[in-house]
């Protein structure tokens, strides 16, 4: 790695053109109205594909579409619009989603039921918005509500950044700007300056509105599934035309997600501490031999599972698998991210019980820091979710497992 590379990565120029009002002005106009010189205005090299179809950097949505888009991009035909993912009429699941989402008033129970088993990529963005309570169930109210909420975010953002980055909370802004470049660094989408600037603004706006926790490292990871899903919604459009709406939707959806687990990030992180206690007692009840082995080796749950709770397993599985996992979390009626997640973490650990019981302290730690789940596919995640569901059914109402005071 050359010296220059480090410097260029660590000390970007932050031109005034990065200020959100300009971003909002350039992006909310949308579509073909975007000026041709938008790239230079944002100090983003064209080679970094701001103008390329969003699908080119999104591996998951409709594989055939994104692959086609990627190859078009490589053959310098990036301006040919990729086909927007749409429901496959032959697929009964997609049909059910299409029907549920297009009914005048979406049946939330039905949508949850469908979503638990995984949401088709073409319907994921809309479904996530509804399940998070961001978009309304009423079909006719949905577009104006989204428009109003996005504008509300853009106003908030303009206000926050009105006096430039020098007027921001320096400590907070510093932490965010050193974490954003190392957010999902293995994914091309998050290498794009356009997306990185967007993520910085989103995180700062969220943190500024939530002083009890502020920005805590790992919250940046939690924003990545939202970018992944919302940028995939219009893969044929140039990224710069969709990133603003994705940022606004991401902001509101992340806000709602974090509302359910806010005490994971307040002082001393009590939510995580409680989750770890629950996870440990759950593992002890299901697999006492494993629990005893971990204890005998001096392995504490805090040492390996802290990150699992703090980052909701974003670091333990691929982004595609994480998104699939979150489909189910969002479909869970009773706090998927706060409660069901603990069962998923326990199920994850129990998967490797046999191997772990043959390892010593150092081996266990090294194994769990880079778990085999990193190479998983969706089907593996689905088995995990099914196992977690089984444990939940067996133990959730068990009074000797969860003290009554643990119930929200």
């Amino acid at each position, binding site marked *: *790695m050359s010296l220059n590379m480090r410097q260029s990565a660590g000390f970007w120029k932050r031109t005034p053109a990065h200020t959100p009002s300009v971003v909002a002005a350039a992006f909310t106009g949308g579509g073909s109205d975007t000026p041709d010189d938008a790239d230079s205005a944002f100090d983003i090299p064209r080679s970094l594909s701001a103008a390329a179809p969003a699908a080119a950097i999104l591996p998951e949505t409709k594989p055939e579409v994104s692959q086609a888009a990627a190859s078009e991009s490589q053959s310098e035909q990036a301006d040919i619009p990729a086909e927007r993912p749409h429901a496959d009429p032959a697929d009964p699941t997609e049909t059910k989603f299409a029907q549920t989402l297009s009914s005048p008033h979406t049946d939330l129970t039905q949508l949850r039921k469908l979503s638990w088993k995984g949401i088709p990529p073409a319907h994921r963005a809309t479904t996530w918005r509804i399940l998070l309570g961001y978009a309304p169930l009423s079909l006719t109210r949905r577009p104006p509500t989204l428009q109003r909420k996005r504008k509300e975010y853009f106003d908030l953002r303009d206000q926050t950044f009105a006096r430039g980055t020098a007027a921001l909370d320096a400590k907070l802004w510093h932490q965010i700007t050193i974490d954003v470049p*190392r957010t999902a660094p293995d994914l091309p989408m998050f290498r794009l300056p356009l997306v990185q600037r967007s993520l910085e603004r989103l995180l700062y706006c969220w943190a500024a509105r939530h002083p009890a926790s502020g920005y805590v*490292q790992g919250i940046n990871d939690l924003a990545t599934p939202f970018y992944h899903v919302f940028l995939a919604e219009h893969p044929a459009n140039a990224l710069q035309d969709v990133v603003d709406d994705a940022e606004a939707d991401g902001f509101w959806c992340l806000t709602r997600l974090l509302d359910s687990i806010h005490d994971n990030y307040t002082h001393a992180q009590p939510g995580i501490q409680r989750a770890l206690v629950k996870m440990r007692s759950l593992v002890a009840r299901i697999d006492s031999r494993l629990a005893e082995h971990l204890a005998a*080796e*001096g392995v504490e749950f805090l040492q390996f599972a802290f990150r699992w709770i703090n980052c909701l397993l974003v670091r333990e599985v691929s982004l595609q698998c994480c998104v699939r996992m979150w489909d189910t979390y969002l479909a869970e009626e009773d706090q998927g991210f706060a409660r069901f997640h603990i069962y998923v973490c326990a199920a994850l650990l129990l998967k490797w019980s046999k191997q772990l019981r043959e390892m010593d*302290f150092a081996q266990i730690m090294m194994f769990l820091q880079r778990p085999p789940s990193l190479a998983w596919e969706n089907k593996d995640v689905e088995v995990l979710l099914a196992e977690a569901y089984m444990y939940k059914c067996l133990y959730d109402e068990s009074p000797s497992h969860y003290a009554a005071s643990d119930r929200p």
Partner: protein
Amino acid sequence: MSGNDEYDYLFKIVLIGDSGVGKSNLLSRFTRNEFNLESKSTIGVEFATRSIQVDAKTIKAQIWDTAGQERYRAITSAYYRGAVGALLVYDIAKHPTYENVTRWLKELRDHADSNIVIMLVGNKSDLRHLRAVPTDEAKQFAAENGLFFIETSALDSSNVEQSFQQILTEIYRIVSNKAIESSQDNVQPGSGAQIIVPSVDDHTKNAGGCC
């Protein structure tokens, strides 16, 4: 997996310092000879081990890399317990990370064993023309506070090996001297997570400030 290897001594070392100073890369350079410019931020703590030879003895270092952000201090301070060495890292190109060294020392005083061997590490020494912390200033500060001092670059590898070697050797020296002094076998190789905590006199601790 290297967990079953034989060793004479097991020393627990913690890596502390502000966010983004390169703690994780120092660890990966020392234990795996890897460097990643955009490595993900550390959440909570991460763990790695490596064994080195000193005086024909095998010393296994169990190294805990901690998250730099303040919010994590409540969690990470628990890891200071049982640590016999600490690498307190700052970025030579970012003066605020050096200014915070005093706060990190206080963290160690509050939570770690009073005899912990501390090495002040100025990382990113490859960024010569961006240097914000003069070597002499940091060296003097280290001497005044009884810390060892070294400048490293996890990027170009310079002094990384030496920094860990030096702190481990120093701990070994203290532990083995103490063993001879007290003429009792209190330095049995541990198993699992057992840690040998040296019990040294105050004058031994203040003998630092080399380089």
